[in-house]
């Protein structure tokens, strides 16, 4: 058996890859559910019902998809340029913390809401950017692989958040768990649906996906970042400034992850805790791959993950299947997607 490269992977196959990958992941996860003694079809039915079956469930799914779209975009733009930003989780937290810190400035509470929200979002994005520029600088200056440095910084970031919310930014009015001082009311994102948690952050996230798609498809920067990822040497000979392109990519990627944290604070929580993210940064990597790094595909992939996470929560209350099955399925879909993509590029010959 050997593999033969296809000259031109057909568009149909490429579009089919994520569908096949998700189905394969669902089959394997279904086996795990069956081994645990439950009916997999019933479990998946309950997951869909939990995610779409009620107004509340539906709003929760979209609320959950919001940060996932942004962290997915963050990973997608970086991976396209072969900048391995695995630090989305840390950038998310630092973005959230920056918003909370910015909200503590007394003058912010007096700003008109539009301006207050805009400045807060900017603060979060800039903080996320700075967080990724560190590992990039180490790569460009010292040749240090940014995978490990950005990963290690995730732990540093959460510890830093913990230090700040137990110290300088501690909310004196909060009892029990440490949390930051809440952001002022005028900086909160407006709700999209009455009596739910769904907020305008969803529109920002979808808008960001469309904007990133336009930038990648229609601008010189988009072309350069793709070239830098495909073949850095060739790109460099063709006159692409590699260093500068990577810095711009890092700003975009870190900024998007920071924005995700900022929006989660302004839209959902209002303050920062060390459990603000159930691994949004890491899920973003899966979502980016499942979308084949396509910014518009990220929206669909984020929705799939959100459905799994929200649906599994309600499913696990009905059946005695741990809600971790959602994490298992989503992680599996990354591996099956890699295989599916391989099959779009190669055909198997005997």
């Amino acid at each position, binding site marked *: 058996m050997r593999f033969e490269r296809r000259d031109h992977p057909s568009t149909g196959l490429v579009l089919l890859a994520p569908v096949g990958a998700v189905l394969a992941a669902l089959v394997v996860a279904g086996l795990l559910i069956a081994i645990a003694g439950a009916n997999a079809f019933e479990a998946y039915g309950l997951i869909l019902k939990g995610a779409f079956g009620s107004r509340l469930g539906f709003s929760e799914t979209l609320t959950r998809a919001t940060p996932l779209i942004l962290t997915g975009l963050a990973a997608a733009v970086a991976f396209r340029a072969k900048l391995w930003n695995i630090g989305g989780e840390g950038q998310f937290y630092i973005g959230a913390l920056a918003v909370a810190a910015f909200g503590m400035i007394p003058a912010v509470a007096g700003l008109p809401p539009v301006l207050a929200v805009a400045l807060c979002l900017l603060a979060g994005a800039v903080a996320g950017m700075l967080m990724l520029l560190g590992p990039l600088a180490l790569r460009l200056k010292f040749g240090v692989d940014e*995978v490990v440095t950005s990963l*290690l910084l995730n732990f540093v970031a959460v510890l830093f958040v913990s230090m700040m919310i137990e110290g300088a930014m501690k909310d004196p009015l909060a009892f029990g768990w440490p949390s930051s001082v809440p952001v002022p009311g005028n900086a909160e994102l407006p709700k999209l649906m009455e009596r739910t948690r769904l907020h305008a952050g969803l529109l920002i996230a979808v808008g960001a996906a469309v904007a990133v798609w336009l930038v990648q498809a229609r601008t010189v920067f988009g072309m350069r970042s793709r070239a830098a990822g495909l073949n850095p040497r060739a790109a460099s000979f063709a006159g692409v400034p590699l260093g500068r392109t990577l810095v711009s990519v890092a700003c975009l990627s870190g900024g998007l992850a920071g924005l995700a944290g900022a929006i989660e604070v302004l839209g959902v929580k209002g303050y920062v805790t060390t459990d603000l993210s159930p691994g949004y940064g890491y899920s973003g990597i899966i979502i980016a791959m499942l979308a084949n790094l396509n910014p518009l595909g990220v929206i669909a992939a984020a929705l799939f993950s959100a459905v799994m996470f929200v649906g599994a929560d309600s499913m696990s209350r009905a059946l005695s299947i*741990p809600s*971790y099955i959602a994490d298992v399925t989503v992680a599996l879909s990354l591996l099956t997607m*890699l295989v599916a993509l391989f099959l779009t590029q190669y055909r198997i010959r005997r």
Partner: protein
Amino acid sequence: MNVILDILSSVGMWEAVLRIATPLIFGTLGVLLCERVGVLNLGIEGIMTFGAMLGWLTVYSGGDLWMGLVMAGVGGAMFGLLHAVLTVPLGLSQHVTGLGITLFASSFAYYVFRLAVPTATSPPTVEPFRPLAVPGLSEIPFVGQVLFNQTAPTYLALALVAALAWCLYRTPLGLALRMTGENPHAVDAQGINPVSLRIGTIMAGSALMGMGGAFLTLAAFNSFFPTMVQGRGWICVALVVFASWRPGRALLGALLFAFFDAFQLRLQTVVEGVPYQLFLMLPYALSILALVLMARRARVPQALMQPYRRGER
């Protein structure tokens, strides 16, 4: 100043260095093996988590401690096989596959853990490995008390360093392994199949990672809880660069690292007015520093992250 001297002169501190170093030694050797044949294995964090869970589960459901360690190794090797199949014959991105393995293995570990223990507020414990005093030697003041009063897996880890160094530099197998990481075409020309060599070595390395994880639940602590690996796997990946892909230096790196970790733990309790989180950041910051210092100097295996296909260059 006196406080620091007190810490440095205590037997407990140096005993802890070896204890903290043990999972890192297992993990670092595991990463080293994989990278020596040219494959990055970022699955380590998840494989350690899975090993920690499986080791604990084996003992919790009645197996003995060694059985737990072995099962963790077998579980690790299975994830290693998955990583190997995806990255070696298929030649998929080693970065992304490894991260996928980590995310899959850790969520799978949590899933199985929750199935085994559906509703416990505090994680159930097992009876862990006890320190095994070597008769005679453990009575040598200080040095003996530190070196020869450890748990059995710690001795095993130290023995593995020597065994691996011997295997890599003194046996034909070791030569073939090292050559696979430098030039798989040359290995193939010698009539050795680099693909199967890579797959086997990744499985062996991943088994070590799983055992490193099991040390956490079966010796360092006595129960499993999610997120307990706390980035140790990533630290091992950094340590391998620091060690320049040599087993002896990997041991040195793990010990150095464990020294700082044990030191900051003790310093936390005596230094006042400094947030404890700053101390906890130290291990991660040190790993980054180690990478910066060594990145340009280290001799990277030439075929690292280069998929091998016969007849393709």
